[in-house]
């Protein structure tokens, strides 16, 4: 048993090592190939070669869009939970704020009747979401970790209450006819129309790449170091001159920004936002995505988000004891959290820090004897 595990670890480890020893141009080539692959994916001519993996029967482009939204959310939550170590259990609330802001500003069913175009509503949604992140964070980020968790849980719940009972937010009736993002082809037809989900997917994919670049930049700077130091020993970090509160707030605000972005994109495609399709238990799903993939590492968040979203979409249409498997999704991912914490808390794709540790220990064993 041990030898099998070791063999798997050494295999994965070997891949990791080869990756880091490979010359730069090679790594860029692989990354470029992967990116091209994902852009090409929704095209039927391309994916029919992939066999049973794409969910045939349903619109694969649509599925890819949903998956990409989850990936974006996972990357955002990863900043808060994975990098800064702040357990935000209500992360989906930021998604809701983004989506609702767009809805209120653009939809004809909104009380405001401002009827803005989507592109104009987008920056407002982003700013409002960041403000809500700062408002939530300012009183709560000084608290102990478990108190922070429960307050964020309460925050999400309050948004739900506000959405269902407030007349302004129209509960289940929701907002319809939310406009799409702008742009049209040369023949006048809109790029972001109702029938073709692919442009939406490509838009989100592009944004994911930009966000990942930004996060990577932050990681390799004093911001990333501050986040790790806060996570590992907050008091020592303060004594080394790290303004911990400020950086915790930045983590929150960044996560909120990304959540709001995802919400705004979702609203722009769905055209309809109501308390129905903003199920706040999704916070758990995103958390499961981050934990499953490997909290604290960007690739882990992407893989986790993709895996989780893909599984959920796969769940549709399959029955289990008379109930569609899709109904089980929250229970399933709740269990995933428990199981992961017991058996593999570092996630499927541990980050290099931990891999390096593992490597050192093995070297010591061989040398010391």
């Amino acid at each position, binding site marked *: 048993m041990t030898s099998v595990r070791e063999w798997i670890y050494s295999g994965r480890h070997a891949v990791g090592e080869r990756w880091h020893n490979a010359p730069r141009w090679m790594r860029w080539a692989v990354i470029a190939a992967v990116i091209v692959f994902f852009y090409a994916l929704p095209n039927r001519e391309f994916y029919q070669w992939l066999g049973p993996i794409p969910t045939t029967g349903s619109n694969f482009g649509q599925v890819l869009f949903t998956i990409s939204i989850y990936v974006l959310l996972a990357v955002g939550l990863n900043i808060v939970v994975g990098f800064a170590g702040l357990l935000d259990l209500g992360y989906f609330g930021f998604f809701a704020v983004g989506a609702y802001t767009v809805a209120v500003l653009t939809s004809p069913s909104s009380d405001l009747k401002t009827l803005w175009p989507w592109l104009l509503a987008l920056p407002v949604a982003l700013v409002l979401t960041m403000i809500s992140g700062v408002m939530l964070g300012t009183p709560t980020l000084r608290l102990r970790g478990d108190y922070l968790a429960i307050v964020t849980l309460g925050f999400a719940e309050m948004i739900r209450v506000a959405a269902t009972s407030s007349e302004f937010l129209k509960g289940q009736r929701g907002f319809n006819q939310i406009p799409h993002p702008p742009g049209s082809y040369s023949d006048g037809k809109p790029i972001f129309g109702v029938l073709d989900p692919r442009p939406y997917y490509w838009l989100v994919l592009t944004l994911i790449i930009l966000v990942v670049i930004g996060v990577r*930049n932050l990681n390799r700077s004093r*911001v990333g170091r501050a986040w790790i130091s806060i996570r*590992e020993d907050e008091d*020592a970090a303060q004594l*080394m001159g790290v303004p911990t509160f400020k950086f915790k707030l930045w983590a929150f605000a960044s996560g909120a920004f990304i959540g709001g972005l995802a919400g705004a994109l979702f609203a722009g495609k769905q055209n309809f936002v109501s308390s129905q399709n903003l199920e706040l238990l999704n916070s758990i799903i995103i958390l499961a995505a981050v934990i499953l993939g490997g909290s604290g590492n960007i690739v882990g968040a992407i893989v986790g988000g993709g895996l989780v979203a893909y599984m959920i979409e796969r769940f549709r249409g399959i029955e289990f004891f008379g109930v569609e498997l899709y109904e089980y999704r929250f229970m399933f991912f709740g269990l995933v959290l428990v199981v992961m914490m017991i058996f593999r808390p570092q996630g499927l794709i541990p980050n290099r820090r931990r891999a390096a540790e593992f490597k050192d220990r093995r070297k010591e064993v061989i040398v010391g004897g």
Partner: protein
Amino acid sequence: MGETVQKPTVPEQAGAPAVESTAKREPLLEVDHVTLRFGGVVALNDVNFTLYKGEILGLIGPNGAGKTTCFNAMTGIYQPSEGEIRFRGERITGKKKHHITKMGMARTFQNIRLFPEMTALENIQVGADAHHKTSVLSALFRLPRHRREERDGLEKAERLLEFVGIPHRMHDAARNLSYGEQRRLEIARALATDPVLLCLDEPAAGFNPAEKEELLQLIRKIRDQGITVLLIEHDMRLVMGVTDRIVVLEFGKKIADGLPAEVREDHRVIAAYLGVPDDDAA
């Protein structure tokens, strides 16, 4: 700034004062009639002494004397119940911890608090980051000023690794370093914050004599860089060997304050450590 002392061959005399006359001494950290109470317990009782720029001051006393409490008060972790503590003329009571660090005070910990998952280099970089001026947004977009500060921080970290003697451990996770290396890394990290005053909390705990000697040299090297040092230590040889002045606490009160040679002969200090025969206990 402290005048450099000729290093004598006999360890006991290494602590010759760095300044000739008291008039030239500049107070750096003033503990001004500080009393500190925890509930009903008086941990520090009207403690009063001054730390001067350029010296190496030792803070000693038997267990329970209040050294750590005093140390923590001086580094801004505890607030005095009475009296005040001034660093570079400013009150530090109530100041946020990272402000105090930015003011020029850095410290190490008795039970080593490195960031275990970060490499040695990264640990030091965190210290160097204390004086970074560029914002989060410029880090996000990798603006030139940010890149320059990163480069400077990296160079400083590498230099400090050399200074404390562990350059070969640059990319190793802090938790994998040996005990002695970890202690040195902690000192390097504290030095990265460009302190004017370095506070060492039992830096020699767990060291063998050879390691203690190396530490002694390192502390002198640090003082030669112009940094003032405050030291809590139990090892008398180390204290006598490296400090310029010693303050002795017992039961929360200061019972002696002076040159190592004087303190060594002080009967109250001897009594505190060794006790007095019962009939003499007046």
